[in-house]
């Protein structure tokens, strides 16, 4: 079943933060993807609690997961605990940002 988690992570890489110009996985907004009682759960955050683009990201993440989840129920949870920090950006993301 870890295959579906990998596919979910790949699918979430198609969701772009329009301000950062990075996908939400490389931006470090996806805290966790796991199967809980047969349910695919993605735990995500935004760069700030007041991020106006946050709801759009969730909508797109839902669409991305729907494409790979098949019959598996899924859920997106939003958390601000812990808050996002730039250290969460992946090496690929840093490279894209010119770090």
């Amino acid at each position, binding site marked *: 079943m870890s295959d579906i988690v990998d596919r979910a992570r790949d699918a979430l890489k198609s969701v772009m933060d*329009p301000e950062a110009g990075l996908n939400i996985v490389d931006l470090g907004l996806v805290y966790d993807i796991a199967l809980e009682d047969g349910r695919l759960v993605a735990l995500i955050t935004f760069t*700030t*609690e*007041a991020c*106006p*683009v946050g709801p759009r990201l969730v909508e797109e993440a839902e*669409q991305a997961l729907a494409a790979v989840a098949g019959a598996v129920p899924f859920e997106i949870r939003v958390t601000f605990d812990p808050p996002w920090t730039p250290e969460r*950006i992946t090496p690929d993301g840093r490279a894209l*940002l010119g*770090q």
Partner: protein
Amino acid sequence: MNRPANPAAASFLGGAKSRLLPASIPLRYFGGAVFFHLAFWLGVVWAAPEIPNFAIGPGRVLAVLHLLTLGVFAATAFGAAFQLLPVATKQPLRAEWPARLVAWLLFPGIVLFAVGIAETLHIPAALGGVLSAAGVMLAGVLLADNLARARGMASVVVHGWVAVASLFAIAALGFLLVVDQHHGILASRNGIGAAHAILAVYGFMGMLALGFSYVLVPMFGLAPAPSTRAALASFAFAAAGLALGVIGAVLAQPVILAAGAAAGLCAIALHLRLMAAAMQARMRKRLGPSFVLVRIAWACLPLSLILGALMALDLWPWRGPALFGALALLGWLLTFLLGMLQRIVPFLASMHASGPGRAPPLVSSLTAERPLEIHRYCHFAAVTGLIAGIAGDWPLVVQISGAAGAAGAAAFAWFFIGTLARMRRAP
């Protein structure tokens, strides 16, 4: 499709979606600000001979000044606050129609008021004043209602409360000044005028600028959020400085005024330290030309307070009010707002160009660099030229600076209209 089952997440998401206003609401205010920005610089050309020796009172300069303060500053502040405050407070606006109505009251009111006080036409001035004040008060009520229901982001909320309180005080003092013009009811007209100006510059606009910076600067720079505790400490100094400044102005007590400026400087030192830390830790190294404007604005903010303190203590020899106005209103506020608008407008356009099954276009794809480059050079030439023209009492330099500013404002309008056109064409 499955929906979030977690109650907290579902509640947050439902609220967040409803907090996104229709594009027409914030963009009408930003469009109004773009229009009045151009009108302001053309007004500088028109009123140039009177600008270097300006003292508070009706006439061309005061009219041009209100094109800037109400037309550019208040309009930008309302557009940003109506869109961003509900996101920060996690509460939707109570209703959208008042946010639309404010523009219908404010914009015609500004035009009538400016024409009335420039040409000493009492009825247009009074009608424009009433319309503008009604728009400002309605905006204040709408924002206060949202702040009263706020959940979270204390650093933004406390700044918002003082900004809204200042807004009501500005309107009340402005009304007193208008009545005094005709009936002579005030013992100290200059003191009330100074308090009105302090509340407008550092109270309403200043508090909103500081508060929203704690969200916008980290967001644009991909930086960690500044410490809330440190932001609240900066706020405490800022609020104390504002109160002292207003009391000192009303009572005509230079020492209290200077103490207010000193407290304001402490607030700014803390604020800029937090901004510098965010900038240093940011992951997006290239912030673009907009942050050149923002950095220059940050430098002008403490300079304006130092000049204000020197003026209060009678240690500044000449043309204090005009120089202070140029430094605080143009060097700091206008430069800061235009820098931020260069980021906010494409960001909003990106959000509103997306829809169900349609990803938002990248913000960078909606921004035209060429007009912003032209604007930047013209803006710097205009502001430095204006300050030099005031300092040297050279009306011709002021006039040429106004023309440069108008060219820059036209370039900014080109950027704004171009961004909206790209938003509409977005695939």
